[in-house]
């Protein structure tokens, strides 16, 4: 009888998707609503003529050129640097590679406007560098070059983090095979390694380009005329919102094009072989190789980490010693904490039904829901801000200039973060576990609170922490939506930097960095213990 049981012994594939209750759908739709509002508002504004204003073609061409030029420059430099750092820290025997990898990633906690602040505070006659070296007056770098530098510092960690997995999964035996077939070291890199990395490079490039065209903080402080800066200029203090809306719609179109290209590439970005047989040779670095690597990493870390932190501390201590007021930095911090925490909790709670629908439902609409959660995430935040202002003024007047609207904006923009971590957590829970609870006498609702949510908790916590971190740093949407006088840390830094009060801006920045480090540490600790 062995033949029968052998043939049939593969267990039947478990049915992972089940019919789910209607109220899950209702809750998911409710949670998805804020995300859809900005895009719908902008599309509505175009259709009803609210976003049709004549912007002079010359002005438009200038903004477009400026924006794309900056995007190209930042993308080129940060991708080149990020690929270099990820290669050196994962594929060579450089001593201390791991520590350098962390140091390269650390500037991630610095928002672009803080980088801009440190640039402004470093140069000039009162600048920290001038003061330290005394003799020459180090110039203040602003405009195109300032924005380029600030955003490159901001973008390198993203490229580095994106490239490390791809590079560490590269199969070096392919490189060896090319060498064995007669290629030179450079030839093998050019014909084998580089093409294998091309999808990663392309995806990183588009991501950096998207960050750059969306950035408001750095370009506004460093006075480089891009779309986001023009939108804010058109918006601030004007009664006619149509020019700002028109520019926002154009910027949205550019961003959407970049996002679509990025998603297409990412789908193809699975060249790397990941199987037990792959070999991972580590490149040996000679003394010269080490010297060059340490020099490069040293310069990068000096510019992206040491100088900014030094400048912030120098301005704050200088201000403190001369008896300057630091302002209401603790009150600002409390406001930032409040709205960010509210957004984190809201995003975590809302993610529960959405994740249930995405992971568990077996209808064809579930994948659509997953895509919809991304609707606002990739939009430039200033566009989301403009859209929600318009929405509030025209449809939901009582919410105009309320903190609730700020939280809604955060929820709209950062929802995919918690949905992602919640879905990952839910995928690890067998639906049988919930069925078991049902057949043990618990209702569907009781099962949610006693089984589903407790088991999803780590994912919800991690996602919530990330939302908190991102919301703390958010500037443009907060700037447009906040109630009058509602100064968060981000706004205080931006406003005081613009007015030249670098001590107050520095103090707020240090508080922001310290608070941001807490959830980051929590997430890192969780990953370590996972």
């Amino acid at each position, binding site marked *: 009888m062995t033949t029968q049981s052998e043939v049939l012994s593969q267990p039947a594939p478990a049915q992972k998707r089940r019919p789910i209750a209607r109220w899950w759908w209702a809750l998911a739709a409710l949670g998805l609503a804020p995300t859809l509002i900005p895009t719908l508002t902008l599309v509505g504004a175009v259709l009803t003529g609210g976003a049709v204003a004549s912007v002079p073609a010359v002005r438009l061409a200038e903004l477009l050129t400026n924006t794309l030029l900056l995007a190209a420059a930042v993308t080129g430099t940060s991708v080149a640097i990020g690929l270099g750092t990820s290669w050196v820290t994962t594929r060579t025997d450089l001593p201390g590679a791991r520590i350098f990898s962390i140091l390269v990633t650390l500037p991630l906690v610095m928002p672009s406007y803080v980088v801009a602040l440190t640039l402004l505070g470093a140069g000039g006659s009162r600048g920290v560098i001038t003061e330290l070296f005394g003799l020459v007056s180090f110039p203040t770098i602003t405009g195109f070059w300032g924005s380029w530098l600030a955003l490159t510092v901001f973008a390198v960690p993203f490229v580095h983090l994106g490239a490390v997995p791809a590079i560490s999964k590269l199969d070096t035996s392919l490189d060896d095979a090319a060498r064995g077939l007669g290629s030179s070291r450079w030839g093998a890199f050019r014909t084998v390694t580089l093409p294998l990395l091309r999808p990663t490079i392309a995806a990183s490039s588009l991501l950096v380009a998207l960050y750059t065209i969306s950035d408001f903080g750095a370009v506004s402080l460093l006075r480089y005329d891009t779309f986001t800066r023009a939108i804010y200029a058109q918006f601030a203090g004007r009664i006619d919102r149509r020019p700002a809306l028109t520019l926002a719609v154009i910027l949205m179109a550019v961003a959407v094009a970049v996002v679509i290209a990025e998603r297409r590439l990412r789908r193809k970005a699975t060249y790397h072989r990941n199987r037990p047989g792959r070999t991972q040779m580590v490149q040996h670095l000679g003394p010269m190789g080490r010297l060059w690597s340490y020099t490069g990493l040293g310069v990068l870390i000096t510019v992206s980490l040491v100088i900014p932190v030094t400048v912030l501390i120098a301005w704050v201590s200088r201000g403190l010693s001369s008896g300057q007021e630091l302002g209401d930095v603790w009150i600002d911090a409390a406001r930032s904490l409040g709205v960010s925490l509210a957004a984190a909790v809201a995003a975590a709670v809302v993610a529960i039904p959405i994740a249930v629908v995405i992971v568990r439902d077996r209808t064809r609409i579930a994948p659509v829901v997953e895509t919809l959660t991304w609707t606002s995430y990739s939009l430039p935040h200033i566009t989301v801000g403009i859209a929600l202002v318009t929405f509030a003024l025209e449809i939901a007047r009582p919410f105009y200039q309320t903190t609730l609207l700020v939280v809604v904006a955060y929820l709209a923009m950062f929802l995919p973060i918690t949905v992602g971590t919640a879905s990952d957590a839910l995928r690890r829970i067998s639906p049988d576990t919930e*069925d078991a609870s049902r*057949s043990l006498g618990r209702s569907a609702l009781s099962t949610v609170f006693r089984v589903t949510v407790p088991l999803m908790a780590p994912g919800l916590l991690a996602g919530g922490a990330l939302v908190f971190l991102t919301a703390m740093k958010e500037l443009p949407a907060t700037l447009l939506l906040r109630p009058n006088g509602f100064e968060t840390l981000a706004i205080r830094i931006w406003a005081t930097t613009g007015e030249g009060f670098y001590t107050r801006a520095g103090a707020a920045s240090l508080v922001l960095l310290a608070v941001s480090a807490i959830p980051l540490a929590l997430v890192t600790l969780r990953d370590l213990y996972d």
Partner: protein
Amino acid sequence: MTDQTPSGASSPEHLAIRARSLTKRYGEAVALDDFNLDVWSAGILTLVGPSGCGKTTALRVIAGFESPEHGTVDIRGRQVVGPDAMVPPERRRVGMVFQDYALFPHMTVAKNVAYGVASKTDRKRRVHDSIEMVGLAGLEDRLPSELSGGQQQRVALARALAPNPDVILLDEPFSNLDASLRERVRRDLRDIIKEAKATAVFVTHDQEEALAMSDMVAVMRNGQVVQAATPRELYTAPVDAWVAGFLGDADFIPGYAHQGRVDTPVGAFATPHEGKVTVMLRPEDISVIPDPDGDAVVVDREFFGHDQLITVTLPGGTVLRARSGSGTVVAPDQRVWLKVGHAVTFPA
């Protein structure tokens, strides 16, 4: 199906589960198609069939996780699925042991077992008794991740038994266990269920497992129960050639029946059928007698130690397999006689 009633129980009140004309589709695929089943109290019934025959769906419909398009299910005389009734799983008094056990990973063994016990007054005792019964006393405070696969399964069983359900359903409970463990775990599980005087329905694709542990076996194919009977009856009197082949090794030879007899190269057999028939022979019902004058020739021999499988050809070219004890010594090309103890005929 009244002929499957064991030991004199005959009234519907003795039925733990009564399923009638259940139909369930997933899009185009038909999972259940006029599914009928009777499960008698205090016994073990096994649903067996090839993958995709609908056995897991049947279990899930009985448990209340899926609702059928058509048909009724009664549990202990109470309708839980029907035109006017769709009782949710939590009110069916059905315990379930899942293929992957589905223990709550964030709860200890004791908390897992206590989860379904509603009554606060004797929860402690019930949890204690259930854990004792499955032999896991002392492991109450462990988390599921700290237990072996076999121990996890016992927790799943204790958890299902603790609320004292009317019936417990077990979906492929042995498929995640090491082959070497299975036989022992199977016996233990059977003993526990018998001791608890519980009614159990197993689902498996392993016919040997089904025959070994059940009081009744229901064979499923294409969403239907094709035969439900005691293991012995099922094995010795399958309703058709497919069931015969599914339950164990069988060879089939064609024949022509006339006046209650069918003649074959291995002898004549009595048959209730007339005309063309198929005669089913199980290897263990065929004895091999070495004899230089024999009409059969040995073509192959596989020696397993406890027994051996001898393949022979008959003059007409018919190939048959015979299972005999290791004492019979034969070699390929040797001439033998075959003696057939039992044969079943089906209309061809």
